[in-house]
């Protein structure tokens, strides 16, 4: 837990980057193939992970920098800063004010979680749960 790389990996898992969590799970599951779980089962599990990956890609849009945020976007995942602070919870609709606040915080306290917004064409009730 001391090395910074492990800290970053840990915080990304903890803060739920869906792509990252899935590849982490895929790695863990394939390690147990033939041991705790039968190879055939692990194979279909990995197939299922690929399906889930495609599904998250279809539903969420990854925002690479805070400068890309625009008003009226809906957050699909919560945003956390390096020190573990919750900046905005998922489901929040961005406003000019909140974007400015996040940008000013991010200068001192970088955002660790990837930012995901709901795709506009997927703008339905169940997407924002």
């Amino acid at each position, binding site marked *: 837990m001391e090395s910074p790389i492990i800290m970053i990996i840990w915080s990304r*898992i*903890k*803060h*739920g980057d869906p792509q990252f*969590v899935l590849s*982490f*799970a895929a790695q*863990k*599951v394939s390690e147990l193939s*033939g*041991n*705790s*779980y*039968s190879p*055939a*089962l*692990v194979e*279909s*599990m990995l*197939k*299922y992970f690929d*399906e889930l990956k495609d599904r998250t890609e279809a539903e969420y849009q990854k925002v690479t920098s805070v400068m890309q945020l625009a008003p009226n976007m809906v957050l699909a995942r*919560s945003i956390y800063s390096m020190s573990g602070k919750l900046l905005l919870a998922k489901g929040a609709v961005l406003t000019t004010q909140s974007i400015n606040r996040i940008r000013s915080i991010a200068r001192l306290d970088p955002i660790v979680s990837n930012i995901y917004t709901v795709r506009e064409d997927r703008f339905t009730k169940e997407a924002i749960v």
Partner: protein
Amino acid sequence: MDHRSRRVAEHAVAIAHLMAIPDKRIKEIEIAALLRDIGKANFPLFMLEKSPNDYSPEEMAIYKYHPQACSEILKNVYGYEQIIELVHYHHEKYNGSGFPSGHKTSKTPMGAYIIGITDYYDHLVENKTR
């Protein structure tokens, strides 16, 4: 019934579809995934609040009994024979390291393994996200 059971059931059904298991069996897997931990209903509260990794040997013995407790609860339900079997074996492992019986592959139904692996996946993912 908590959200965990619902998620595990959902994943288990999806994997069963990928493995081309017949629809009737899939329905059984879904119900078994929802009911799999009903045997934990008579656990003392403090055991539910910590993870199985932190259990003392006595608590571990109680924990390892929950699949059997579950089949005891369900044994009088008409038409649940297959489901009871799935629930009873859902902690079995491919290499025979699981519990309650530690059987190797031949005796354990495939559905029980599917519930086991999705349970593990959900544990991996949801303990670390929110």
